[in-house]
């Protein structure tokens, strides 16, 4: 069940996560806030984007190893894991879309305690990002941004927002300081799940940044390609986070079914309850295999990573949403309280079927792949 030694996050990383999260995830869920020192400490240890190479001061994890770390965080707190997903996606975006100078400028900051969010979605552009209305234009040696982004994970805590925008008939990705004049960040009140992940709407009113904040050095790349590349990281990260949700649900359900007695015997000895446990076990194994398979493609830089990542995200999020519902069923009233691990899982996992490509978007893309590959 465990990853080979070389692919496990190092013990110190796991210990730091465990120490910082402790038994506080439920409190963070109900209060809707992640404490700043927790984010800064994990970020400063490079663990919010652990694939950043050592030359930039990062831990230099493989995708598989980072995935196991992501699952570990996801099993404890999906809000914190959401921050990890956004930070990792920001670092990956800089790595892929930035110039060497930009990698050297931004990556050390992202493993040094600064926090970043990534902004695609808009009021009119959710699944269909081609309708994005945020625009970038050049004015002298500055880039000017105008637009409105919504539901940006981590934006409430972020120092930097990676903003995707249209530029002429092309696109661009820009590093925008959250404190820049013209940037307004407003929290989304009372989200259904990942409640402490700092989701916020971000307004950009004539925001001016120097041209060297434009990833790649100048605007005008393909917007769909930029978005696809950035989202690939978000997808594999969400997939591993969902594997973590399933691990937590399996642990909670088996512990409860072993200890709680009804009708004179442990719940686990009632066959209908045992089936729930078998389904949870299967879901965790299937999700973990799909994630490991996708990460192997990342680590081998194989073109299969594109489809394998989509598959992992789809499998893992759908399994997690179903598995979390199953876990709540097994715990019943014992888990029916906000803040409880399975109650959080139930709400958090549902949202994972919506973000980074909803179930339906994944299905359309997988079907398209099936048609071309078969």
């Amino acid at each position, binding site marked *: 069940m465990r990853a080979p030694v070389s692919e496990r996050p190092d013990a110190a990383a796991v210990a730091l996560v465990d120490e910082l999260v402790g038994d506080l995830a439920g409190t963070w869920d109900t209060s809707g806030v992640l404490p700043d020192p927790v984010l800064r400490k994990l970020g400063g240890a490079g663990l919010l984007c652990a694939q950043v190479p050592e030359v930039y001061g990062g831990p230099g994890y493989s995708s598989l190893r980072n995935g196991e770390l992501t699952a570990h965080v996801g099993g404890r707190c999906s809000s914190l894991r959401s921050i990890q997903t956004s930070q990792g996606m920001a670092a990956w975006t800089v790595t892929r879309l930035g*110039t060497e100078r930009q990698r050297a400028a931004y990556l050390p900051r992202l493993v040094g305690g600064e926090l970043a969010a990534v902004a695609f979605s808009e009021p009119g552009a959710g699944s269909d990002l081609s309708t994005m209305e945020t625009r970038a234009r050049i004015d002298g040696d500055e880039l000017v941004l105008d637009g409105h982004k919504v539901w940006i994970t981590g934006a409430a805590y972020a120092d930097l927002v990676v903003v995707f925008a249209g530029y002429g008939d092309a696109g661009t990705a820009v590093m925008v300081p959250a404190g820049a004049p013209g940037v307004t960040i407003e929290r989304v009140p009372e989200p259904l799940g990942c409640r402490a992940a700092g989701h916020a709407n971000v307004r950009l009113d004539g925001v001016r940044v120097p041209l060297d904040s434009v990833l*790649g050095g100048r605007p005008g*790349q*393909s917007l769909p*390609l930029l978005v696809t*590349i950035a989202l*690939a990281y978000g997808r594999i990260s969400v997939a591993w986070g969902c594997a973590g949700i399933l691990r937590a649900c399996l642990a909670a359900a088996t512990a409860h079914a072993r200890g709680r007695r009804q009708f004179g015997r442990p719940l686990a000895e009632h066959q209908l309850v045992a089936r729930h446990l078998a389904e949870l076990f299967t879901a965790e194994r299937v999700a973990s295999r799909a994630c490991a398979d996708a990460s192997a493609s990342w680590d081998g*830089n194989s*073109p299969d990573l*594109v489809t394998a990542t989509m598959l992992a995200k789809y499998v893992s999020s759908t399994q997690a949403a179903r598995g979390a519902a199953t876990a709540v069923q097994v715990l019943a009233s014992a888990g029916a309280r906000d803040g409880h691990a399975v109650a959080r899982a139930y709400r958090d996992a549902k949202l994972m079927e919506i973000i980074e490509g909803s179930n339906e978007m994944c299905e359309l893309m997988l079907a398209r792949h099936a048609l071309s590959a078969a």
Partner: protein
Amino acid sequence: MTSASQALEADLTDLLERRTKIPVAPDADLFELGVVSSLFAMELVVHLESTYDIAIVGPDLVMENFRSVQAMAALVRRIQDRVGAGTGV
């Protein structure tokens, strides 16, 4: 055209024809044919990187570079020349 360039174009043509199930001429406009989605473009990026040991990053990610087999082959050659000349971005 050098044999390396020919091999490059042949490799790309082969991949595209396998995936799109239509004949693909070296100068055919893949966007007009509607056969290159952004996901497929990302696959092509990783394919070119892993096959030719190059990195396609930053400013090279314009769709124009993926418009045809010839455009992709030219991109690979440009990056190889740049790396050879030690002026990578």
